[in-house]
């Protein structure tokens, strides 16, 4: 066991820390509503009091320093550094420690960019990656359909190649941020004769294409911004396909694993735990601090045990990336299940201990934490369901991790 990164990283750590001190608590300004949600989820929502920087300017500054898009090649707008897991860890750690706002994430940056790097043509990389990294092109993901949720591969939105264009008809659902997006990456059935998984293609669709209708789907938080998206003879050029015809399932799956892992960042969970501890020290009932109520305190300590375990576990996963051959068994597979359940429990505890105050929401003048406790509590219930429901995660863990048999197919009655 050796938790030191080694003296060769001392200089780099110092450099990152100096930057973080300068931008500690920085406020990222933007008139785009999409970012409110992003900030709440990435732990940036706490009241900041540092420098004020514009969104796109901030993205560019972070790329320039190599604190974001670090290993994405320069010719596509990245920093162009060698992949270095330890440096990434040092950056993430320092940003969390000094409460520096993270770079923008979202489905374009977290999912589409890695997908294009792996599968895209040179033209596609040139056209899309840089503006996505700068936060100028926002993407939404067109995967789920009303009848293709956990069984995503049964999706039915149809794409036909007619005169050098894809003509798309059908419907997507649970499309986050569709109303703010310039582009969608979409799974479309283009090979109706092929088997379920082999008939899908991955197609890029500009959201201003005629025939697209977006209907907001209000969720329980009243803010998160899902949508239904309808396609009526939506026509995009043939070259908007990523990968070959029928390869869409493989293209999509090459980054789905990444999404699952990133849904509950342990650094953010730790920040939320610290916020909860502060809340319990500040808030009182009958003149007693909430943290002095033994039953509340015990529940806090139970959650802290889980958070510490998750922190230690993320160190072990990091170690397995640095040291090839280290066995982490089920290590990565459990992250989405355990991480989302833990956040939901943590946020819910804050509501419980606040009693009536815990019910306040949105812009109520008495609301605590800017309404973030209720919002995140509900939002994480959404994440428990989304990104592959936690029941699907349990299937994955038991089948792929523990080698248990698949559920036999039920015979369909005719």
């Amino acid at each position, binding site marked *: 066991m050796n938790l030191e990164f080694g003296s060769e990283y001392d200089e780099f750590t110092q450099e990152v820390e100096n930057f973080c001190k300068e931008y500690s608590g920085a406020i990222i300004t933007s008139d785009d509503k999409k970012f409110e949600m992003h900030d709440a989820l990435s732990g940036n929502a706490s009241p900041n009091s540092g420098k004020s920087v514009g969104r796109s300017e901030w993205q560019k500054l972070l790329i320039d320093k190599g604190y974001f898009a670090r290993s994405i090649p320069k010719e596509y707008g990245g920093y162009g550094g060698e992949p270095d897991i330890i440096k990434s860890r040092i950056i993430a750690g320092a940003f969390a420690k000094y409460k520096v706002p993270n770079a923008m994430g979202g489905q374009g940056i977290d999912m589409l960019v890695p997908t294009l790097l792996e599968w895209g043509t040179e033209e596609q990389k040139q056209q899309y990656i840089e503006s996505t990294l700068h936060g100028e092109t926002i993407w939404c993901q067109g995967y789920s359909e009303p009848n293709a949720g956990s069984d995503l591969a049964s999706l039915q939105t149809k794409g036909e190649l007619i005169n050098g264009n894809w003509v798309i008809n059908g419907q997507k659902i649970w499309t986050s941020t569709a109303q703010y997006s310039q582009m969608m990456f979409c799974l479309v059935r283009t090979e109706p004769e092929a088997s379920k998984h082999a008939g899908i293609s991955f197609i890029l669709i500009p959201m201003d294409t005629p025939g697209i209708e977006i209907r907001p789907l209000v969720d329980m938080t009243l803010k998160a911004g899902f949508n239904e998206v309808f396609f009526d003879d939506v026509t995009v050029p043939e070259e908007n396909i990523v990968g070959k015809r029928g390869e869409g399932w493989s293209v999509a799956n090459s980054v789905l694993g990444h999404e699952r892992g990133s849904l509950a960042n342990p650094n953010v969970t730790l920040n939320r735990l610290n916020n909860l501890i502060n809340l319990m020290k500040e808030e009182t009932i009958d003149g007693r601090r909430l943290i002095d109520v033994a039953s509340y305190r015990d529940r806090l300590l139970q959650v802290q045990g889980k958070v510490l375990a998750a922190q230690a576990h993320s160190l072990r996963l990091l*170690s397995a990336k640095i040291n090839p051959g280290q066995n982490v068994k089920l290590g990565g597979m459990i992250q989405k299940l355990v991480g989302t359940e833990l956040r939901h429990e943590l946020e819910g505890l804050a509501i419980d201990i606040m009693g009536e105050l815990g019910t306040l929401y949105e812009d109520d003048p008495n609301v605590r934490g800017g309404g973030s406790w209720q919002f995140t509590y509900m939002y994480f219930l959404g994440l428990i369901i989304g990104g592959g429901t936690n029941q699907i995660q349990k*299937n994955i863990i038991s089948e792929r991790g523990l080698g*248990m048999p698949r559920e036999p197919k039920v015979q369909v009655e005719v």
Partner: protein
Amino acid sequence: MYFGLSEEQESIQDFVKKFLADNASVDEIRKIANGEDEELEKNIFDGILNLGVNTLLIPEKYNGLGAGLLHAVAVAQALGSGVGPIPFVGSYVMAPIAINLGGDEEQRKNYLPKIASNEIRFGIGMSEFVGAREDAGIEFSKNKLNGRALFVLDAEKSEFIILANKSGNIFIIDANDKGTKINKLTTVDKTRTFHEIILENVDAEMLALTADNNEIAKKVIDAGRIILAADTVGASEAMVEKAVTYSKERKQFNRTIGSFQAVKHMCAEMAADLEPCYSLVWQAAHSFDTEEINSSRLLACQSKSHTSEVGKMISKKATEVHGGMGFTDLLGLHYWFKRIGLNRQILGAPEIVREEAAELQGFNQ
């Protein structure tokens, strides 16, 4: 940067596991638990001691291996996974740490080499320091101990006993002193031994450095808690493995029960909650070996209480996956269930330990 057990630590863990797999089947464990085969019990003890587990925490200058607590954690996981019926946490973790940290040079020289050479063995009783009971407690005066100590670990066949009082002073007594009465306690877990010791004017030697502070007693408790957590992790791992294996063999409704989602999801829940426990316990042990007291004590407390909760859940669900067979003595799954259950209760049950962790962080005023 490397987070995990070293090759050496994994290797001793594998040796202990393999030895138990080859020599301590459930039938053999049952014989020992029922007190039916002393020779078998001795052979298992000798076999595991041959791997050097008694020398791990004794510094090299006293003829030990001079390894850290993480090494002992590796062994404890293996002992838990095979419900190893040998003394370990008391005799070979807490006792040597107490003597090494609390003894003066003469005391260390007197006892540690003999533990390393297996000439003597220690039991240890610190339950009064963790939580005193009304009808128990020891009094020290004029180099004599009087009173009653409860839940003394690994005292069976030990030549010496270490006892702590409420103030955290730590004493050594001769188990064969004529004023010492040692009574075996009947607990649910019969893979390890627990005793009550009644003392009447028993000659006692105080570990010199424990005379005026309880920090050493706390440190010994930290180590004990981390090792119990590791034992629980090992026992939990074995229970999950047994449940998964059984679910792939047992058939009902013309299919293996492991193909039912109800069963699969129970197994996934167990595995998902167990996985981070390894990392937590390893980090706690590493922190015990290297870091300042406060952060390592928090991790020791949280390892003990968190693994106790996860272990309790696993011991229940894994038994349920086995259906009626899980409830039988024939299958013997209950040895793991009880081992986890006992680890939970000793050296501070979860609520007590969490309260200590809260105090440590200045949470309660």
